[in-house]
Each structure stands twice: as structure tokens, then as C-alpha cells.
């Protein structure tokens, strides 16, 4: 029996499915009448993007995405929405008076990105990508050598935000 031809389309089908899921949840973020649903859709979108990273064999990026965006930022957003009573139970309209102009800009940005992506000479996808432990080690090394200033400044920024939050939350006595 001759071997059957390989099925490359499975990967593409999965990719298309995840991409559709991500786009649908992204639409949910902007169209949800209830802000809490919007926040949940945002979590779903971020998971979808993480799944796309996994498809591209960038597991470290995917897990970092879930760790930072879902674990920290989405939880924070959810908290902020929950503690705002009118937002929590009220139905808000996804549109306000400026929807026309905003939509125009969104379309323009999309077109610009489309042209940008189309004009970039992408690297040969057949080239092997190093995505193992040594990649993470090199990433860490870059953080403390070449990009040490950016890294430290970001840390300082977070510290300032932390101190600011403590200042705001402190009792005034």
C-alpha cells in the first residue's frame, strides 16, 4: 500500500478556526452591551491570540501573553468594572456620537497595516526557528545586557505606578 499523502491542511484549518474565534471575540469586546461581557470577551480574545502563538511554535510568547494579559491585566479590568456599580448592571450602548469618525480611522489603520504587512519581505518560513530552552536563556541574557536600560526603566515605571496606587489608596489621617 503506498503511503497516503500528508495532510498539511489540518494545521491550516486549526489556524483558521482559532483566527475566527479570536476575531469573533474581538468583535464581542466592542459590541457587547454589557461591559462585563466585554471584559470576558477580551479574555477570550487574548486566549485566542495565545493559541495563535502556539500554532507558530512560540510557546514562551503564548504563555507570557496568558500570564501577563489574562492573569494580571484582564483581572484588573474585570475588577474595575465590577466595582463600578452603574457599569456592572447597566446596559451601555457600544456606540457613541463619534462612531463615524472612529470607524473611519479604524478602516484607515487597517488599510495601512495591510499595506505594511504586504510590503515587508518576510524571512523564509522554511528556515529553522530556534524555540527551545536556549532561546529563553538568550532572551534573558539580552534583557540584562543589550536592553538593560529599557528593562530597568520599565521596572522603574512599574514601581512608580505601584507607589502612586498606594498613595491614592492611603487613608488621609
Amino acid at each position, binding site marked *: *500500500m503506498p*503511503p*497516503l*499523502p*500528508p*495532510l498539511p491542511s*489540518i494545521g491550516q484549518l486549526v489556524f483558521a478556526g482559532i483566527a475566527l474565534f479570536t476575531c469573533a471575540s474581538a468583535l464581542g469586546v466592542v459590541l457587547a452591551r*454589557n461591559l*462585563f*461581557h466585554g471584559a*470576558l470577551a477580551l*479574555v477570550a480574545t487574548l486566549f485566542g491570540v495565545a493559541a495563535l502563538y502556539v500554532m507558530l511554535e512560540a*510557546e*514562551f510568547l503564548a*504563555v*507570557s501573553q*496568558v*500570564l501577563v494579559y*489574562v*492573569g*494580571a491585566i*484582564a*483581572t484588573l479590568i*474585570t*475588577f474595575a468594572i*465590577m466595582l463600578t456599580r452603574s457599569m*456592572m448592571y447597566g446596559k451601555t450602548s457600544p456606540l457613541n456620537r463619534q462612531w463615524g469618525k472612529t470607524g473611519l480611522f479604524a478602516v484607515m489603520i487597517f488599510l495601512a497595516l495591510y499595506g505594511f504587512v504586504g510590503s515587508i519581505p518576510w524571512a523564509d518560513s522554511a528556515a529553522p526557528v530556534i524555540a*527551545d*530552552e536556549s532561546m*529563553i536563556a538568550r532572551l534573558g541574557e539580552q534583557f540584562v545586557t543589550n536592553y538593560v536600560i529599557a528593562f530597568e526603566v520599565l521596572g522603574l515605571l512599574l514601581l512608580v505606578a505601584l507607589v502612586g496606587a498606594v498613595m491614592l489608596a492611603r487613608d488621609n489621617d
Partner: protein
Amino acid sequence: MQGPTWSDGLAGLLTGLGLPDMLALGIAYGIGAFILVNFGMVSALLLIWITRKAISRMQDRLGPNRLGPYGLFQTVADAAKLISKEIITPSQSDFLAYNAAPILSVFGVLILLAVVPFAPGLIGVDLNIGVLFVVALGSIGIMAALMAGWGSNNKYALLAGFRVVAQLLSYEIPMVLSILTVVLLTGTMSFQGITEFQSLTIGGFNLGIGWLGIVMPAAMLIFFISSLAEAELTPFDLLEAESELIAGFHIEYSGMKFAMFFLAQFVNAWVLSALMAILFLGGWQGPGVGLPGIGPILGIGYFFIKAYAIYVLQQWVRGTFPRVRIDQMMYFAWKVLVPATVGLIVVQAIVQKLPFQSPVIYALIFLANIGTIWIVVTALQKYIKSEGLRTKRSFEPASLIGTMQKADTYAMY
């Protein structure tokens, strides 16, 4: 990694039957995922039985003993009861959040089983970032609790949801930092790699007792305490406080939806004990795992013995410890565990850069760990003394006469 893995073996078998490579691999992974998920679900029955029996023994009761040998099938009967119960949906609950929360909470725990190494070559998928994977997916449980609390349309459930998030986020930090000490020493984030690091080969025979818990007892202790808090067990079970409150964020759930939260909690406790076994007690390492043929089977045995032993230890703590207050719980996480672990990491990073032989480095790390335990215990003794004094003063006004001190002189903050 060493040796063939189960997925390669199974896929090879299927390819031999004439299936295309990709389909064979897909089917192999499908079977593996099916077994893992069902293992998680079914083991919950056993875990609930262990909990009941262990706590009954400590409270001088018999526990379940009617159905099956040693009451083993009691949980099955309970599950049947829960399935047959009416599912009550509170009015004006949020359909999406209310119904998705139990599913997500189970999903967030079962997915962790994918990176648990059961034996050499027997791991769902050996991610090179396994540790990070576990840390990142812990956030699913937090989201599920928030969704359940908000979706129930009940202010008590919502408040409990906030408390869950506060507790889980706080204790995640010392837990992650204590895992970081292991990653720092082993230089890998893959669970299989961490397990392989803990072998101890003498004369070509793998004794398998180079456990990291021996070198770093303080990190192990911190991980254990944080895992108690992450699994919402006593002394940190004030989210549920079964003896006083009605329930936590799942107050509005009934029937199987309620049972799913409990299932997630039990499996989560077991996964955390399994992680502790992997990180600090060598996982599947033990005498003779290097032998061909019998090694992997021994490995599975060692792994399950360790994981269940730690689970029983958790239940032991659960059956004997009193509950802490919420301010004490937060204080302990942020002002005791986090500084202790950060200090440990700094010392360990410096020690590992010293130009010594590795036995000397291990000895220095061990000393740093013992020192950390000593400092924490001393500080806690001081705190407990002052806390006792404070409680006495606030409850006995007579004790203030003559001293003229304010009752909250020894307040914590």
C-alpha cells in the same frame, strides 16, 4: 530528553497499521488527552474518599463505611445524587458567566495535568516552559471564581469572589518565587528536566534521591504553605469556612454545577501536591528508576506514592489547624513569605555564582534555607506574642488599668 516518549510509541504503532503520520500522532494525542482528563475526574472520587477518611480519623469518627469496601463507593453515590438534583438558576443571573464558570474552573485544573511527568517518558507534553505554563494557567481559576461570583447576581457571592481573587493572587507570588528557586538551581523550566536533575547516580546506579527538598527545605515549606492557600484548604479556607458560612462564591450553584467547583478544588489540591512532589521530592525519581524495563513502572509508583502522601499531609493540616483571620492571612503572605522568598532567591543567585564545587554550593544553599526558616520563625514568635497581648487587652478592659496604654499599641499595621 532521554528515551522514547509514550506519544512517539503510540504514534509509531498506529503508523505501522498504515495510518498517515499526522493522523497517527493526532489519534495518539487524542487518546492521551482522554486518559489524562478522565484520570483527573475519576481520581477526584478517590481524593474525596481520602479526605473524608483522613479527617474522620483525626476527629475520632469512622467516616464513610457503608458502601463498598471501606466506604469506597460513597463518593459515587454522592455523585449520582448530585447529578439527579434539580439545577436551580437564580433569577436575573448572567447566563454566560453563570454557566461558563463551573466549566472553566474544572478546565483550568485539568489542563495542568498535561505537563505533569508521571514517569520517564510519560508526560502529556514536555513543554520547555512547563513551570511558566502552570503559573499562567492558574489565572483561569481566578477568572472562573470572578465569573461565578458576578454571574450569580448575589452580592455575597460577588464579595466572596473578590476574596478568592485577593487570596489566590497574594499566595501565587510566594509560590511562584519558591518555584523560581528550583528553576534557578536546575536551570530548566521543564518538569521532566527538573525531575531528571534530582537523580543521584553513585557507581552507575541511579539511587534517585537527590531531592531538592533536602537542599532547600525553606523553599519547600513556602511552596507547601502557599499551595495550601491556593487549594483553599485549612488554615486558609476562610473563603468557604464550611463550619460558619454557607459557602463562598458558589453559593448560588446547585446540583452538578456546584459539584464541579468541588471537583476542581480537590483535583487542584492533588495537582499542587504532585507539583510539590516533582519540584522538591524528585517526582518519579527513586531507587532503581534507571533500570531498563522495570524503571518506568517503578517511576509511576514512586510518583503516585509521593503525590498522595503530600495530599494526605494536606488533609492532616486541614484536620488539625485552626483557621487564620483574613488580615493575618494577607500579612503572612506579603510581609512574611514574600520577603523570605525574595531573600532566599538573592542569596541563592549569589551563592551559585561563587567559584566553588557544587557540593559546597549545595551546602551554602542549605545553610541559607535553614537561616531563612530561623528568621521567619523568630519573627512569627514575636508577632504571635504581641498578637496574644493585643487580643487580651482588647477583650479585658481591666488589664488596661494601671498601664494606661492604648489597646492597639501592638496593632499589626
